């Protein structure tokens, strides 16, 4: 009997825990389970404010409930006129002063953390990445290392990384909820923020400012790896030979098509700073295709033949000659051979 009860208790506990976990959202996407400095600081302020707010709410609801129950008109009171109270100075001072105190309690740490998160004292000796938002993808330029990549940003764990964020077209907003809060990508200026991830892993990033039809499909990733892996990745990316011969004949055909169809006019391979379309240097190592879909051969062929179906309003549609399925397959094969680094999202102990 006791055992049985114990099992039920364990089950309820398990159910409750999983419910709470589910309520927190998906790991490495949710802001409620922070794994980076910015997200953690935001979380601290959130918790402080929620505690204050819940306290206020409980008091309001207590008074409210008691008032409604106690002072509801009862039978026989149809003609009862309650005392017409004008006000009460003491009470009014109390409920003015207490909120002022509560606001101060919240305001002081807010101000300190705002300045802390805007601190750029270490910018010169840290890794810095130029982030550019585009309709509907993200470009990452490691200007000090002369590395260009798109969609997946690689950073070392427990290191401050400075991001210089701007936009090539309309306003976007850079948001990796588990690591840090947002920063807008504006066309007219560069905003700087720093991030620091505490754990290796692949973190979801989202665009958080309406930027057109495919706004909701502008996902990207931050791949957090160990320092050694990061160094290795930088090394590999630097030594990419964009002219390298593909391994198979079909892929070679794809490479020729890639050049003949002027894909290469927008998509750089290697460290060329041109970024009209996403840089494809380590395309085969990407976590996703076009930010949202599984990177498989079939999906890639479909994407090449009809990008509009996946990302409405993207800038690739209509800017290259129509591809036959064979041609698309060859290009896909070529692109899936672009895995010039041994460091890929799996190195982050994830996916």
């Amino acid at each position, binding site marked *: 009997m006791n055992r049985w009860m114990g099992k039920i208790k364990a089950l309820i506990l398990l159910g409750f825990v999983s419910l709470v976990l*589910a309520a927190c*959202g*998906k790991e490495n*996407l*949710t*802001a*409620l389970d922070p794994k980076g400095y910015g*997200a953690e600081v935001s*979380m601290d*302020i*959130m918790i402080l*404010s929620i505690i204050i*707010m819940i306290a206020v*709410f409980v008091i*309001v*609801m207590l008074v*409210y409930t008691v008032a*409604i129950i106690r*002072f509801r*008109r009862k039978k026989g*009171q149809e003609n*009862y*006129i*309650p005392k017409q109270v*004008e*006000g*009460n100075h003491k*009470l*009014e001072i109390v409920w*003015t002063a207490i*909120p002022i105190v509560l*606001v101060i309690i*919240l*305001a002081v740490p*807010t101000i300190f953390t*705002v300045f802390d*998160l*805007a601190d750029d004292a270490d910018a010169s000796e840290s890794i810095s990445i130029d982030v550019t938002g585009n309709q509907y993808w993200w470009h990452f330029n490691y200007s000090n290392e002369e590395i260009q990549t798109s969609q997946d940003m690689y950073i070392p764990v427990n290191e401050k990384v400075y991001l210089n964020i701007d936009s090539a077209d*309309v*306003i976007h*907003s850079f948001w990796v*909820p588990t690591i840090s*809060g*947002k920063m807008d990508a*504006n*066309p007219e200026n560069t905003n700087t923020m720093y991030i620091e991830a505490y754990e290796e892993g692949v973190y*979801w990033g*989202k*665009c*958080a*400012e*309406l*930027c*057109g*039809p495919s*706004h*909701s*499909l502008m*996902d990207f990733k931050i791949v957090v790896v160990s320092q050694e892996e990061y160094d290795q990745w930088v090394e590999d990316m630097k030594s990419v030979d964009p002219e390298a011969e593909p391994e198979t004949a079909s892929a070679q055909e794809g490479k020729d098509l890639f050049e003949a169809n002027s894909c290469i006019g927008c998509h750089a391979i290697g460290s060329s700073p041109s970024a009209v379309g996403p840089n494809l240097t380590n395309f085969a190592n990407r976590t996703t295709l076009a930010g949202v879909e599984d990177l498989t051969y079939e999906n890639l062929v479909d994407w090449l033949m009809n990008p509009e179906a996946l990302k409405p*309003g993207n800038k690739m549609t209509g800017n290259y000659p129509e591809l036959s399925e064979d041609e698309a397959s060859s290009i896909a094969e070529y692109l899936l051979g672009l895995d010039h680094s041994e460091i890929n999202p799996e190195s982050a102990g994830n996916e």
Partner: protein
Amino acid sequence: MSIASTQQKGFWAILWDYLTTVDHKKLGNMYIAAGAFFFVLGGIEALVIRIQLAKPENDFISAGLYNEMITMHGTTMIFFAAMPILIGFMNAIMPLQIGARDVAFPFLNSLGFWLFLFGGIMLNLSWFLGGAPDAGWTAYAPLSIQSPGHGMDFYILGLQLSGAGTLMGGINFLVTIVTMRAPGMTYMRMPLFTWTTFVASILILFAFPALTVGLFLLMFDRLFGSAFFDVALGGNSVIWQHLFWIFGHPEVYILILPAFGIFSEIIPVFSRKRLFGYTSMVFATFLIAFLGFMVWAHHMFAVGLGPTANAIFAVGTMAIAVPTGIKIFNWLATLWGGSITINSAMLWSLGFIPSFTIGGMTGVMLGATTADYQYHDTYFVIAHFHYVIVGGVVFGILAGLHYWWPKLFGKVLNEAMGKIAFWFFFIGFHLTFFIQHFLGLMGMPRRYWVFLEGQGLDTGNMISTVGAFLMGIGSLVFIINVVYTTVKGEKAGNDPWGDGRSLEWSISSPPKEYNFKQLPLVRGLDPYWIEKMEGNKKMTPAQPVNDIHMPNGSILPLIMTIGFFIASFGFIYQVDNNLWLIALFGGMAIALGSMLARSLVDDYGYHIHKEDLEKEVD
């Protein structure tokens, strides 16, 4: 027109009467009716949005259409549903509350209404003329400049038209309250709804010009090749955000303050107790309005304004919690010790207190910049402002409709249906929006056409969609109630609630076209209550029965508006074809011609004679 006009009239005569009326009560009802129509449109758009988000990667509507839906939902609800209905109340009720026979500028009042209506029609015509605006109701540049087609142009011209109408309304109410109060109605004896009308009108006066300027710049960028917001040509798109929010934040208070006013009328009446802390309520209203002008950048914490600006605007934002808190506690203290009746009007008011408290608290949380970096532009924000605007403004509107329906239309809304509508709407509302706080923090930004599978957002979105439909059912029950009441409802007396405190309850329901046969003498706060407590059935008159001077109706406001309406199409389409310049100049000629006619032709109005008045029974 004379008193005899209350007799049976043909359809065309009634239509003509409404097209030409300058009577504040009729215009008020027209504002409410038109606002309700747009509310239904915005509601349908909301349901389409929720259907699209019912499951992950849904393809119920396309990405482009989705962006049009969200833009139109926001714009319609704010500018063409919530605000007009509130302005309708201000029109219909405020003059009655201060003991006035009409507003100060009846002609302007009519013009304001028609401008609003045609602005709304203009905006919604975009659906049929090549696509609605799609850059969000905030229309951030450069997206709004690059948006193809004419959708954004309809947004600009539609808002410009209705904005002019709103500005006229605001000025009109200010002048009315300053100059037309009945004898004895000092400022500190004005009912709270009149006070909030006054303060909201000040906000309109100072906030709308910022929008007008912004819209003009945007219009020049889109239609005449300027580059105010075009970065490539040396413009700056962040300036649009500043202009928009310098208008946009006070706009929130333009909506919520009158709603506060409505609750401050209803809670005392149904608690049978004077409003607690009247003076502090008035000052809190002013303080909210004042602070409301210095917090616009809290909508822009992620723009990169730098830590100093972000910190200052954070503190300003949090400070608003103090006067708002004063209001909440004053309402609670009004309930405390009262004799509370809970009918539909009171139910909406009581539902408001916890709902709005949550909305206000998430507002403070959003004000904490560091945390806002996470909340910003996610469903947390969506949840917050729906708690404020639905839980505050819409609840206020529905409370006000139940409360003033007898005064506006002479019949009491059905109680049973009122309560059914409330519970559906109330439960649906919390179901829809509470979960969205969490969705936002779980990584769902706002304005997302689809959310991806396997990101833990499925359940929350489904719950939200179910809630939205419950709200839809609630609204439907309310509409049925209106139809039922119109056909079968019981006739209301002067003071159907028995506990009316302010002047509107001392006159017939609906009031005569001249409102007060004799202007009442006001002897304190809650003047009608004072008289009743002393055993008087009516207000003490402040003057003998005299001829009443009334303004004539006029078709000119409508013609003027149609002129501007035609000119707007000219502005939009002259880009495609120069022939449209004819519409532009022709429309302007009609509008300016009617202005000239109005200026040159004297209109002395008419008198209702003393003898006729004496025959009337109150």
